[in-house]
């Protein structure tokens, strides 16, 4: 049936049918195999860009997490409650402090005995000339002294690992310990040495040996560490309420001195520029793939001029691009994992996140490429023909 348009010309609808998907796929293969060098180059570019930016994002995330971990290890979520007499004797109930270990949200609570009555100077037979002291502690003290340690309630003394290494003491070694109190009386006994890395919270700055003390009596300081999610402005009130005996003024301060110049970890994490790298990667991959297509846009018109519809024409180039993007992003993801493992000596904990970054980049590039191919395929065929006449 002829149709008359408004300019005095009559036309009939085409007799030709649409391209089947098999023909589209055949043409995709021919397009890619016709220029293998360019296809490989684009895969390489996609892999480098996608993998590189993904690696940068992984590193920045890891850096933020490591910073948070360091702060946590240093005692970011630790409160210090202290109350002493003028002579330094502790006024906080040791039992109340130790009891905080069973409060929901509290990771560990440790009481430190203080005062002349509790001070013990010490020497170790293996290390003559090294003068130390023994500090009695209550509660779950091992994770407090060494954040990487599990709870430990062994008998004996706990020594900083670096100090122990210097004086030749190994974990579990039986050592002769001589202590003397304020009254000057000395006693010698054999105890088991346990090692902890006390550097994180600087419990190793003085040559102190830690030993479990009785929960009866008092302590001068009670350190309470909260789980990160449980730490809030109300934590102080909770500690104060737990240690309040009705007559003692308890000072509660953060264990870790605040560094006003440091960016809080959460802000550092949220403000990292790499959180947009998935978008940047997708855009760069799209441009690398699409710009050559723009210079070859005559091919779109050529397909149209031999009877291919706009959709099959767009599909040929969109599917070709999709395959390049897929292979490139998979390759980029894999080398991103390898490089991270090589530089950090461990696999990234966030492989799933890296996969999502690569996946998001792929989706952005694929979406833009598809839109671009659809636009080129619907270009003005008349204009194309005119330019060639």
């Amino acid at each position: 049936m002829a149709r008359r348009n408004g300019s005095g010309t009559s036309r009939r609808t085409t007799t030709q049918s649409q391209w089947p998907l098999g023909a589209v796929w055949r043409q995709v293969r021919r397009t890619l195999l016709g220029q293998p060098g360019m296809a490989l180059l684009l895969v390489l570019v996609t892999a480098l860009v996608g993998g590189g930016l993904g690696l940068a994002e992984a590193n920045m995330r890891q850096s933020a997490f490591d910073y948070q971990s360091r702060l946590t290890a240093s005692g970011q979520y630790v409160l210090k409650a202290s109350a002493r007499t003028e002579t330094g004797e502790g006024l906080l109930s040791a039992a109340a402090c130790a009891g905080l270990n069973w409060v929901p949200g509290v990771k560990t609570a440790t009481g430190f005995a203080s005062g002349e009555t509790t001070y013990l100077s010490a020497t170790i037979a293996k290390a003559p000339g090294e003068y130390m002291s023994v500090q009695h502690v209550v509660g779950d003290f091992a994770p407090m002294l060494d954040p990487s340690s599990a709870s430990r309630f062994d008998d004996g003394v706990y020594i900083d690992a670096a100090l122990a290494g210097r004086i030749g003491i190994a974990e579990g070694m039986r050592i002769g310990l001589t202590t003397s109190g304020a009254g000057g009386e000395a006693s010698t006994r054999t105890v088991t040495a346990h090692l902890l890395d006390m550097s994180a919270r600087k419990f190793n700055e003085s040559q102190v040996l830690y030993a479990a003390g009785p929960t009866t009596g008092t302590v001068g300081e009670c350190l309470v560490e909260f789980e990160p999610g449980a730490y809030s402005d109300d934590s102080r009130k909770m500690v104060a309420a737990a240690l309040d005996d009705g007559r003692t003024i308890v000072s509660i301060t953060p264990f870790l001195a605040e560094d006003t110049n440091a960016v809080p970890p959460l802000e550092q994490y949220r403000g990292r520029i790499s959180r947009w790298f998935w978008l940047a990667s997708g855009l760069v991959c799209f441009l690398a793939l699409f710009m050559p297509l723009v210079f070859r846009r005559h091919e779109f018109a050529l397909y149209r001029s031999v009877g291919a519809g706009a959709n099959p024409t767009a599909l040929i180039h969109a599917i070709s691009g999709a395959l390049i993007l897929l292979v490139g992003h998979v390759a980029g993801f894999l080398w991103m994992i390898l490089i991270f493992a090589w530089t950090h000596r461990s696999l990234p904990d966030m492989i799933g996140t890296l996969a999502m970054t690569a996946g998001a980049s792929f989706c952005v590039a694929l979406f833009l490429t598809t839109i671009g191919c659809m636009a080129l395929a619907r270009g003005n065929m008349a204009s194309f023909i005119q330019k060639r006449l």
Partner: protein
Amino acid sequence: MPVTLESVRFRYDPHGPDILSGVDLTIPDGQMIALVGPSGSGKTTLLQLIGGILKPTAGTIRNTTAPGDMRWVFQTPTLLARQSVRHNIDIAVVSCPWSRSERADRVEEMIRDVRLEDFADMPVNRLSGGQQQRVQIARALASKPPLVLADEPTGQLDHTTTGVVMDAIRAARDRGTTVVIVTHDMYVAGLCERVVTLEDGGVSGDRMTGGMTRDVTGNMAGEQTDGADHGQA
């Protein structure tokens, strides 16, 4: 249905001169017609009007061939450069309502018609300009289109290759394809059965040639005639 132009006028600039003025032309189905004339006479413009690329400023054009069914042949070959001769021709028959074997046979037939059997699997960007033009023509004719519009299809070809190309075009004409060729080459025009001469935007001559033929030795034979009856369906 023939292609009919009635009192067609065309100008690119609304305030400019007429490129074509008062062109009346009827092209019956299955006719092979050459448009000749000096440069600037409007030959390519007329071709674009017939093909629907341009719309007439005045007058009527009746062309019942759908744009998707028309095939164009350009002076400069436009091909998928890194794909083979066979693949470049194959894309023209993909949407034809034939079986797979029919499409394959047709592609091979066109390769034979343009004498490119030895180059069928070679990427077209490695062919000479004349060979590429043969591929373009084979692609244009492969789908047995009802109308072929060619602008200087033999402009870059030597005499022998021109003969090969014109043989393929005439074979298509014999199957019922209407062919309109813009050419400066009077040898090519002589191979067409009708020659329309354009001059100063109008038709100054329209004659039937009877169509030159080639005998078995490849020499041209036949007689030219002036026909009063030119283009009546």
